[in-house]
């Protein structure tokens, strides 16, 4: 499991594991499950922006579609939770293949605008489509069982599953980033014409990265739907797309642990400052501004630079 991790990464991973194991005894498991679902979502998003340099502004489409599919299959087909989460991932991947095929035709700012528009299209589709329950969403989704026999009604058991899904996704992304495939992705980020001239079909690589990212976003959405028993329009809305950008930016673009730290802070802010209403939006906007102007490496990126280690 530790293969491919550098020494600083290994230490950071140990810290992360300790936190995941210890925190449910101190904090609400419900809050922590939310953190982990969004952390996986942010890590998946970071795979695109941090390692291919593609800024997607419509990633909630994949998160939301995964959430709807997992919720629907749990509620009406009474599937195993693991299968439902997997189906959420498949839904994210399928949608990612379609939208990614369109979006990677352009790059930079236009890519961001296209993904935003496509995400909005998915939102309106979900608003009208019969299976999503429209404004109500899919409510009262049962948690069911995982692996056929472990009931998930207990929050701690559910937390265990969410933590397992998160870790599997996290390690998978780390594996992808440090594979030869990941090296090509970074080459595309740094200089796409050069990668092309070296003989790589860059659009294929970009599409595969897009599909991987949307599949993992779907997994995150599916896990969230089962843990909270609800899939709603919020999951596919542009607000959620913006939030995941904020999490990744705050934690550190292109760092392995950054999105996790960013997701923790953003979810904590939303949970504990909820009584301040729209001030949370103002604060989020201000964080964007400060991050872009003065803090472009993000929290983990800044720590990594201080320690001279890539985290």
């Amino acid at each position: 499991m530790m293969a491919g991790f550098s020494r600083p990464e290994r230490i950071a991973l140990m810290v992360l594991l300790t936190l995941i194991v210890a925190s449910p005894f101190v904090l609400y498991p419900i809050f922590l499950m939310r953190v982990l679902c969004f952390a996986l979502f942010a890590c998946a998003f970071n795979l695109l922006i941090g390692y291919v340099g593609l800024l997607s502004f419509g990633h909630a489409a994949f998160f939301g579609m995964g959430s709807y599919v997992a919720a629907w299959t749990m509620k009406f087909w009474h599937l195993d939770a693991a299968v439902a989460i997997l189906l959420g991932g498949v839904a994210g991947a399928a949608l990612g293949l379609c939208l990614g095929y369109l979006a990677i035709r352009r790059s930079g700012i236009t890519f961001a605008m296209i993904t935003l528009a496509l995400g909005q299209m998915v939102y309106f589709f979900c608003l009208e489509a019969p299976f999503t329950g429209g404004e109500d969403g899919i409510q009262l989704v049962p948690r069911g069982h995982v692996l056929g026999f472990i009931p998930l009604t207990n929050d701690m058991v559910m937390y265990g599953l969410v933590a397992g899904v998160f870790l599997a996704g996290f390690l998978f992304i780390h594996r992808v980033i440090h594979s030869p495939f990941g090296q090509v992705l970074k080459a595309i980020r740094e200089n796409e014409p050069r990668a092309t001239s070296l003989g790589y079909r860059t659009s294929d690589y970009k599409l595969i990265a897009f599909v991987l990212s949307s599949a993992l976003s779907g997994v995150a959405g599916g896990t969230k739907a089962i843990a909270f028993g609800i899939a709603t329009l919020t999951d596919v809305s542009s607000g959620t797309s913006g939030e995941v950008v904020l999490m990744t930016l705050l934690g550190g673009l292109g760092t392995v642990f950054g999105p996790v730290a960013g997701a923790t802070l953003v979810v904590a802010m939303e949970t504990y400052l909820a009584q301040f209403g729209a001030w949370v939006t103002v604060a989020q906007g201000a964080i964007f501004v400060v991050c872009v102007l003065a803090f472009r490496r993000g929290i983990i990126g800044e720590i990594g630079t201080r320690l001279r280690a890539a985290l």
Partner: protein
Amino acid sequence: MERVTTIFGVPAPLLFGQLLLGLINGAFYAMLSLGLAIIFGMLNIINFAHGALFMMGAFVAWMLLSYAGIGYFPSLILAPLIVGLFGVILEKTLISRLYKLDHLCGLLLTFGLALVIQGLFRNYYGSSGMPYPIPGVLQGATNLGFMFLPNYRGWVVAVALLVCLATWAIIEKTPLGATLRAATENPGLVQAFGVNVPRLITLTYGGGVALAAFAGVLAAPIYSVNPNMGDNFINVVFAVVVIGGMGSILGSIVTGFGLGVVEGLTKVFWPQASATVVFLVMVIVLLARPRGLFGKLA
């Protein structure tokens, strides 16, 4: 009983009514995407705060009326000036720090600014929205023979068209526009000729923002003045910009009006798809002509 004329099996008044609604939405798409195109041409950033500044235009008009008793027509000049000045301050203090960095930084910064502006207005005015009366002279409707045209809506379409064409003329036909286009093409060379390019950039941003605020004032009597009114437009406007081609002035005007009409017609023939039709058009354009209808090859 009077016989109602039908066109393609649709009652004519319904068809013309939706066509008019489409034209009005199209007028706003055109004005907003025009501002985005001007700003993009000069600053190379996509102004994600455009929707928030559009909303601010409507709010400033509402404030001028409620707090100072200043009516619609003075607001049509004052609100864009005030919001444009605000844009100039934003550009001078924040956005101008990012020109040497990746273009995505400008996008993220303006997105953050949009959240701040929207959040502040939501804090003080809630999300429900305030009514803004149609000015007296423009109340009522005119019988065109085949339909009743509410005067204010006709006014909006006419004024929007006029402003769009005037902007196009300024950029394409005047010496100022020539300098602007030259500075877009090669800022270094134009600066060497003694033109203050940074000031030109600031004024361009202010101008684009003022255009958004102007659209906001026009929109105030039609839609209720509320902090989220920009959101409904701006997502479609981004699709319009992609369809028209980034940075094309004439392209954004034509595509804006055109897609408004397409949306209006979809509402008649297939209402469920009316919210997505613009995005579907974008998909088709991306497949057939990725650079957009009026876009130049990069």
